[in-house]
């Protein structure tokens, strides 16, 4: 068991599943769906197994020896001439307290999204093949520790996502799909160029003592590895680290999505089928913030410290702007999409605090947003499947017609508002406490608290319009939840309530890594400070 490549297994399993699907005849829709369910089910079990065997005391972040379940072998090995550096790329996987919550989240959300995809009836085989390819891409991003590998997984998601929105989406699906694709490709172009720049700025020492350029992210985090002349090396007085940081940040920020790069999100969400909205909000948005924490922060701690106020500022703008936009929506799904923008703002704000409380809050908020928003989108999906409309104004009084559905939705709404006792409260509280404790963004934090108020405003108002009041006659025939819908909503509810009462279950996992991250940021001041000035 010790040497079993478990991270490769969890990442490549969906790809393997996709290959199996290709051999199942197109007409056997039930077998195709069941196979996908089994694959994602195994993935979830493996993710739980990972958690069970995870050592909470190891920090990770920039220290290769404290990563867990490491798999590392040489993947590309090109010996060079004198005029060109050797190219060595590792297949390097590993997880730490920053990635394991997201690995868990990915496995969980994918499994639930598979259940939610049961209603798909148009080219089922193609849908699930794309779905599984997407799954591999997402899982790969969270476990890759080599920048090159990370980038490949990052890009692998684009095409399946394009097709999933573009073929199985709503009326304006083509527009939404191409918009999503162009935005994210633009972002990844920036990531690519910084990746190559970093490659030429950091070296890794091989076993025989020679130094080679490297794509290894952990080597990039070690200031000792910078070359004297690299364009992104702090040792080079004319370095372009600030510009590169901004480019990289924008690349990731498009995915979050951070204002003003968020306009693809409402379109994509509204047009995507329910299951894909769930994946998009539950997992894909986290990649942006994960990327910033995994790449921008530890590789550019010096620049992060310089720009942290702006990160906080954009966090604040996201919170307020997203909430205000959400308030103005008439489409249920678009409302949830904008609430996502608002909630991802909390993650940015927490990250900007640079202290362990704020960063824990940010990571925890990533996980919670994944579960809560997934539940919200599922709720929208439930009503859309029955009523074929998402107009908030068209509903009313559903609580009497569908009491159980109303109950679950209430839970999700309250969790999104941040009601104490539910998981969303804890992470938002941590974010605010952490951010308030960091002097320079205190004012931003105070303004951001308005977001909570606005959040309660639009959520409760929506709740009132949809569930309270008199029932309209045309909805008198709506049925309450089916067994499949229970299976999707119950696990998420349990997690939301459990983490609300016992947040330590999740906070303990990430604790060591958060401390390691804070240490990187603090040490940066002394090390990079002496280099720069």
């Amino acid at each position, binding site marked *: 068991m010790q040497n079993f490549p478990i991270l490769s297994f969890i990442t490549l399993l969906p790809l393997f599943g996709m290959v199996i699907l290709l051999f199942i005849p197109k007409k056997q829709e039930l077998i195709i769906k069941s196979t996908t369910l089994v694959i994602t089910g195994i993935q979830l079990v493996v993710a739980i197994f990972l958690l069970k065997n995870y050592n909470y005391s190891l920090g990770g972040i920039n220290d290769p020896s404290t990563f867990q379940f490491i798999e590392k072998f040489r*993947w*590309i*090995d*090109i010996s*060079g*001439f*004198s*005029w*060109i550096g050797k*190219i060595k790329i590792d297949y390097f996987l590993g997880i730490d307290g920053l990635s394991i919550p997201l690995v868990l989240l990915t496995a969980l959300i994918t499994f639930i999204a598979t259940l939610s995809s049961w209603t798909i009836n148009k*080219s089922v085989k193609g849908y699930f093949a794309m779905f599984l390819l997407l799954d591999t891409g997402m899982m790969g991003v969270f476990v890759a520790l080599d920048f090159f590998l990370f*980038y*490949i997984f990052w*890009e*692998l998601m*684009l*095409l399946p996502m*394009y*097709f999933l929105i*573009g*073929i199985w989406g709503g009326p304006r*699906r*083509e527009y939404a*799909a*191409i918009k999503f*694709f*162009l935005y994210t*490709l*633009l972002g990844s*172009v920036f990531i*690519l*160029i910084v990746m*190559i*720049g970093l*490659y*030429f700025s950091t070296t890794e020492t091989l076993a025989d003592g020679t130094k080679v350029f490297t794509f290894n992210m952990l080597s990039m985090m070690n200031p000792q590895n910078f070359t004297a002349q690299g*364009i992104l090396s702090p040792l080079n007085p004319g370095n*372009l680290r600030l510009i590169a940081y901004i480019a990289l940040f924008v690349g990731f920020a498009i995915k979050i999505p951070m204002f003003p790069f968020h306009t693809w999100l409402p379109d994509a969400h509204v047009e995507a089928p329910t299951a894909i909205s769930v994946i998009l909000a539950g997992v894909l948005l986290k990649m942006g913030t994960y990327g910033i924490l995994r790449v921008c922060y530890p590789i550019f701690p010096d620049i992060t410290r310089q720009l942290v106020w702006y990160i906080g500022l954009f966090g604040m703008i996201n919170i307020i702007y997203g909430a205000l936009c959400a308030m103005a929506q008439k489409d249920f799904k678009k409302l949830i999409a904008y609430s996502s923008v608002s909630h991802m703002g909390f993650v940015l704000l927490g990250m900007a605090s640079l202290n362990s409380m704020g960063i824990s809050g940010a990571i925890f908020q990533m996980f919670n947003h994944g579960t809560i928003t997934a539940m919200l989108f599922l709720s929208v999906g439930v009503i859309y499947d029955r009523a074929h409309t998402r107009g908030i104004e068209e509903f009313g009084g559903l609580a009497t017609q569908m009491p159980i559905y109303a109950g679950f939705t209430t839970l999700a709404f309250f969790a999104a508002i941040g009601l104490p006792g539910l998981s969303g409260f804890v992470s938002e509280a941590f974010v605010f406490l952490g951010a308030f404790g960091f002097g320079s963004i205190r004012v931003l934090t105070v303004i951001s608290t308005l977001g909570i108020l606005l959040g309660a405003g639009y959520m409760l108002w929506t709740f009132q319009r949809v569930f309270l009041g008199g029932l309209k006659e045309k909805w008198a025939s709506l049925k309450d939840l089916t067994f499949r819908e229970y299976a999707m909503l119950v696990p998420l509810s349990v997690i939301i309530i459990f983490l609300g009462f016992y947040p330590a279950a999740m906070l303990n996992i990430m604790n060591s890594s958060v401390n390691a991250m804070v240490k990187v940021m603090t040490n940066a001041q002394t090390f990079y400070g002496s280099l720069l000035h």
Partner: protein
Amino acid sequence: MNNNNLNYLVNSLYLIKPELVISAVIVLLVLVDLIMMKNKKLLPYLSVAGLLVAAYFIIEHFETNTFAFSTGSSAGMMIVDPFGNFFKLLIVFASILVVLFSVASTEIKNSFDRHGEYYALIFGMILGMMFMVSASDLIVIYISLELVSFSSYILAGFTKRSIRNSEASLKYVIYGGISSGIMLFGISIIYGITGSTNLYEINSLIQAPQVQSLTFLLAGILIFVGIGYKISAAPFHFWTPDVYEGAPIPITAYLSIASKAAGFALLIRFIKVTFIQSIDPEGFWHLLAIIDWKTFIIIISILTMTLGNFAALWQSNMKRLLAYSSIAHAGYLLLGLAVMSNEGITAILIYFIVYAFMNLGAFFVVMLIANKIGSEELDDYKGLGYSTPFLGVSLAIFLVSLTGLPPTAGFIGKLYIFIALIDAKMIVVAVIALLNSVVSLYYYIKVLKHMFLDKAEKEIPAFTTSYSSAILLVAIVAPILIFGIYFTPIVDLAKNSITLLGF
């Protein structure tokens, strides 16, 4: 001519074995065509066999690094070196595929009576291109260029049936004639200044500082016009969309790979050999200050890729779309040259290997689809992904690779270009090129949109591909995915092929 000179001639023959094989095959093709009037099935097999023999001789002498046809101490008319051999192999590889495409092409099948000419002309082009990539003398360069051009003029108008076919051919002749005339003028100026037509001799003559740089600049740019026309670099690209659209698809595919590759090989050799001053240990070239090639090439390449990409956005015909896309790719390739380093050349070679697979593959699918539905209009592609999933998915892979997204080989090609650019600190250029590739996504994805997202206006019955075509297609798709994930072999091949004679 004394006996001694004749000996040099005879002694050089073993160096041009591949070219001799190709010449022999031309004769053989014409003879077989004459003798077996009724049965033309043999011709493509004969062609492939001849190409395989040629490939064998190229590989046998791959590491050779010497002049051919040199009289004693002076530099020769031709060079046999790994760089040239790489391009010869690439040309042979593309030719084999194109011959196989021609067998499957309905368009070519319909001109059954003239198959003999068709294959003989293709071999004429091959011969010309092989001399082109190994020429070290301006006269040989010009003659080989003309040999390629004349063969391709006829091939472009080969089917003769449609008006657009003849139109393509005529446009090609006119543009080609003018640009080769301009090139010849440039050559004559250089000869006038230096008194030599040999690139190596010219190089040593112009090291002296008193060379008239303005005249030389003019001559260099005039010669570039001739080559730029072959690689369809802007602003000499105007023939490309029309000819690509009008020519039979196998020939279009051939022009987009083989003659472009030969043109690039010639351009690289011409600039490097003629204008080099020294190469530093890092592999960067220091050229003579007579012509600022670096700035010139950067401007041309940015112009080429931007123009190609933006013009492609509006195309509604697959062949025209791929024509503009091939112009854009010429722009990316020129960037590799603009770096003016060995690393940049490596990137170009890698790009060409990848580009050969993906572009030939894309044209092959377009051809197979045209065989069935008789159209290359994008509007007729609606819903095709469902009536022929195999071709649809293959085309999707080729187009994604042309966009340069991982995990396809196209990404590796682009990656190496950008690595070379960033290593040379040409960051602004790299950013422009990357933004260009975002633009290109839009039109490549537009094809996928038509095939998979849109509903067919009139139902296209599901159709299958013949086994032989399917096998060939898989053989082109597989390397794109394999090299995308494991690219060591192509990089190694490219690195071992950048040796030009003398450097």
